[in-house]
């Protein structure tokens, strides 16, 4: 033979962020041969520029909430033994409303969420809020406490999931760019990379906000777009903010499609003593420029919740691109327009929490097994479908 055959994997995963890492883990653990191709280094995109939220509290009722609850059972169940390695912390979330009207709207959401089995404690007034968070602005009207909201350190989670995947034989190629997706008879059959060709039974796009670009290599349109968010990091402080604390408006903004800058406060402490302040959302493409307006508004919103922060220094800020789809649901599963091409992307600001549930369901589907949850609402080709006549 004049040339060696190209290496072959059951699956090639494009991207080594939290989604690529989680899919690699579940696929390799299920006995599939796995190659992960990453153009940068592990967790070098959105995964290292977020807060690591595992939230049940900010989801509107629907398939994303079900996926969130399912993912929680995995983080706390079959992955529980690794929890210390990725700093899993079940710190609880406190949603705060500054107005009586906002509090009534929150009560409606809480009633729905309770019906789905989410644990929520009513926090009736400002005094009750301050018992949970002593530094909270006394002018707040009330809120709701979610004991199951949790957090992981996302970069550690991605690294350890990949370490576990490699323990099951997965191969990782960093600083390797996918130049083309190979298509044969309408089916994705592998990738051409800067490190050569890899044949595969399935190509799984886990490229976060860049997933649309990768899918386009196969001629497939995937409307995953970036939404920029800034996070502010304070100087290390003595214990000041005990839980994840956010304004009720955050839930509205998560579901919004507004292109303009939106800011709603999310404030939390970290084990090292720093306080993280988010969250801004704006559609500015992949513009990485510092935005004094966005950062200033995030800081002011944080001080509105916690007036004590007015005298605290900001140590640094960072921004990341949250991948979102027009209907704010992720794309998970095989692309109905091209067999062999799979997607796990578009989880917006919830990708860390939803990653493990997404990955497990995708691998179930990949192996032809019944999935624990229906992937129908997340089908990647839904944006091309015409409403039935």
């Amino acid at each position, binding site marked *: 033979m004049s040339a060696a055959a190209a290496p072959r994997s059951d699956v090639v995963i494009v991207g080594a962020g939290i989604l690529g890492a989680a899919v690699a883990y579940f696929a390799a653990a299920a006995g599939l041969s796995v190659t992960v191709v990453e153009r940068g280094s592990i967790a070098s995109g959105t995964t290292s520029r977020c807060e690591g939220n595992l939230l049940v509290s900010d989801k509107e009722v629907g398939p994303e909430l079900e996926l969130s609850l399912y993912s929680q059972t995995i983080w706390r169940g079959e992955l529980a033994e690794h929890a210390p390695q990725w700093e899993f912390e079940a710190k609880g979330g406190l949603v705060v409303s500054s107005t009586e009207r906002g509090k009534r709207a929150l009560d409606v959401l809480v009633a729905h969420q309770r019906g789905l089995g989410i644990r929520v404690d009513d926090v009736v007034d400002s005094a009750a809020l301050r018992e949970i968070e002593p530094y909270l602005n006394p002018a707040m009207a009330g809120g709701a406490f979610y004991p199951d909201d949790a957090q992981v350190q996302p970069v550690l989670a991605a690294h350890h999931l990949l370490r576990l995947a490699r323990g099951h034989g997965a191969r990782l190629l960093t600083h390797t760019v996918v130049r083309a997706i190979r298509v044969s008879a309408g089916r994705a059959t592998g990738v051409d990379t800067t490190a050569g060709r890899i044949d595969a039974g399935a190509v799984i796009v886990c490229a976060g906000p860049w997933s649309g670009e990768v899918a386009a290599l196969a001629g497939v349109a995937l409307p995953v777009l970036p939404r920029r968010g800034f996070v502010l990091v304070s100087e290390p402080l003595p214990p*000041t903010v005990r839980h994840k604390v956010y304004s009720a408006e955050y839930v509205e903004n998560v579901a919004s499609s507004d292109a303009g800058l939106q800011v709603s406060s999310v404030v939390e402490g970290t084990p090292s003593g720093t306080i993280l302040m988010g969250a801004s959302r704006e559609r500015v493409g992949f513009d990485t420029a510092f935005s004094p307006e966005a950062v200033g508004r995030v800081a002011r919103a944080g001080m509105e919740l916690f*007036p004590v922060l007015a005298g*605290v220094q900001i*140590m*640094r800020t960072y921004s990341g691109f949250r991948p979102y789809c027009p209907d704010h649901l992720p794309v998970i599963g095989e692309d109905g327009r091209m067999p062999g091409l799979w997607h796990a992307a578009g989880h917006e600001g919830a990708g860390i929490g939803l990653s493990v549930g997404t990955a497990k369901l995708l691998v179930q589907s990949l192996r032809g097994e019944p999935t624990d949850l229906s992937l129908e609402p997340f089908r990647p080709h839904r944006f091309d479908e015409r409403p039935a006549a």
Partner: protein
Amino acid sequence: MTAPPPDGAREFSFDGRAIAFREGQTIGAALTAAGVTSWRTTRITGEPRGLFCGIGVCYDCILTVDGRRAQRACVTPALDGQIVRSDDPAEALPLTGEVDG
């Protein structure tokens, strides 16, 4: 009474101890020159912290200067008669009002 510092020398107080410095030195430089290399501990494991980046970025070297908490030793000029103390990581922020910063 300790002897007054030699002509031109200056001193600040660090946790009650007199630290001499040359004009233009930062608090961090003066402490290091005096053999003090750690004045903070991490919250969970209590590991020692002092100058790390040395250029104002990492906030590992913060201490309280004349009552202002969380000042970076590496970029804060030493001044004659300053009262400097190491931050107590367990000391809570005041509950009402703003932090003096």
